[in-house]
């Protein structure tokens, strides 16, 4: 199998979800990576450690314009005769993978969470993570958009060859007036550890204890929808059916009741810890560990214990 993996390196680094996509591809077949951006040749060669044989880099693409990116991926796919094209189902993947699928007439399995089965079907998320479907692709080649954090990455020691790749990208479809980078070090969709809080926290002035716990863990912060709606927290932190869907290794939820729409965005988490004063809160049914208690007392205590653990190690 000839596999092409698209990764976005525009902001100068290789995201974890990109490494996941490369390693996923390498388990299917000989993997070529196509990427954009200003990242150095040496860092690109390191993609060999997660399974890439070759990295094609295009330095003309200056934005995440879906039309141009799709043209680039299509040209690369044709040049290596790819039968499988892998994207991470991140914000760029969501915009570009469907375009590439339609342009190449290659069926798209979107939201994949596992490698293709021996019969070729691919397991994907459906119903906002409340179920899985097995997708069969009926076309000669296929596009797979991989859910971030669904498969792990293990780095080996290989190196990849790096080649410049040019293609006719056509005109950009839009001009970028401004880029507002999100503050904070850990991006929620990629985070392995997440501390989240809901209306039980009573007001935005109380978020210090949530941030302290997140800091002690090295976790990202998240919130329930009403909290973002009232403006206590920024919208990009809202998780759930209508917010961000996340799959961290650990999700700690304090003062969140656990409505089904909230669960839809977080029930892919490996371990869920729920802190709630109400022992009847529905969230406990979805929890691995539960603490019936007041978040205002529990969160600082938990942060202190985590710091103790970190100090020992």
């Amino acid at each position, binding site marked *: 199998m000839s596999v092409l993996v698209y990764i976005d390196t525009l902001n100068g680094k290789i995201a974890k979800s990109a490494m996941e996509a490369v390693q996923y591809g390498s388990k299917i077949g000989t993997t070529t990576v196509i990427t954009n951006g200003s990242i150095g040749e040496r860092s690109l060669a390191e993609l060999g450690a997660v399974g890439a044989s070759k990295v094609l880099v295009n330095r003309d693409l200056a934005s995440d314009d879906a039309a141009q990116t799709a043209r680039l991926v299509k040209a690369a796919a044709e040049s290596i005769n790819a039968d499988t094209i892998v994207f991470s189902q991140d914000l760029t993947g969501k915009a570009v993978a469907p375009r590439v699928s339609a342009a190449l007439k290659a069926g*798209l399995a979107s939201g994949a969470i596992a490698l293709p089965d021996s019969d070729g079907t691919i397991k994907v998320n459906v119903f906002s993570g409340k179920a899985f479907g097995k997708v069969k692709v009926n076309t000669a080649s296929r596009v797979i958009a991989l859910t971030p954090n669904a498969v792990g990455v293990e780095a080996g020691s290989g190196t990849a060859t790096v080649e410049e790749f040019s293609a006719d990208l056509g005109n950009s479809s839009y001009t970028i007036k401004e880029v507002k980078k999100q503050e904070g070090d850990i991006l929620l969709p990629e985070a392995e550890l997440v501390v989240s809080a809901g209306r039980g926290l009573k007001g935005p002035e109380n978020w210090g204890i949530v941030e302290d716990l997140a800091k002690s863990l090295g976790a990202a912060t998240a919130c329930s929808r009403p909290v973002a709606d009232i403006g206590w927290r920024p919208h990009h932190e809202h998780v759930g059916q209508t917010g961000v869907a996340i799959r961290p290794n650990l999700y700690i939820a304090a003062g969140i009741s656990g409505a089904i729409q909230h669960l839809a965005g977080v029930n892919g988490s490996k371990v869920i810890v729920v802190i709630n004063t109400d022992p009847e809160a529905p969230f406990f049914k979805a929890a691995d560990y539960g*603490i*019936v208690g007041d978040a205002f007392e529990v969160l600082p205590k938990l942060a202190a214990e985590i710091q103790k653990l970190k100090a020992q190690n």
Partner: protein
Amino acid sequence: MKLLVCISKSPDTTSKIDFTDNNTKFNESGVQYIVNPYDEWYALVRALELKEQTGGTVTTITVGGAADDPVIRKALAIGADNAVRVDAEAGDAYYTAFQIAEYAKANQFDIIFTGKETINYNGSQVGGMVAELLDQPFVSLATSMEVNNNVAVINKEMVGGVEVIELNTPFVVSAAKGMAEQRIPNMRGIMAARTKPLEVVAPVACDQMVSFETYELPPAKSDCKYVDAENMAELVDLLHNEAKVI
């Protein structure tokens, strides 16, 4: 401006999800259908606001059977001028996109709106495919949008932040949270919706590229282990040594 809004139906967000026929079909019994929230709250309402500002028409399009009509009437009640239903069970995303693109080719819209994703299949596929089939720009995950004299300024989500872009119509845009506020249809809207045109058109032949073979539910969660609120040392120990996540 001529605006087209892609409307899909989805199970109510509180629906119980399970499957029948050897796990090959979604069990619809007792399921209430709603307008897919992204399509209704964000795409449709922003389209209506633009029409109110600059004039024009808002048409909705749905690929689906007659069972989708109540959901389409809801979109009309909220304020769309007219609706089109392509009379076919929506197949895969490509089939759906192909139908929408064919209709759009024949009718020339300034902006085509989709929702961010359907909450049942969550593909985020249809919008990008429509754009590719029409060879138009695709603006994915817009959180706000202003249009003046056929020039749009859009805030869109990007990896690690927000980007402000400018482009000319025509284009395809997918609407995410922030684009608009939900509108509750009033009695007048509901009455008017009954008589607004809902045109049913025949589908165009198109092969499906993917199919769903089976479905499964996630394994049942094992019982929640309770830890005393006074004993956070125990919780940390469990997370470190038992769950091995920290």
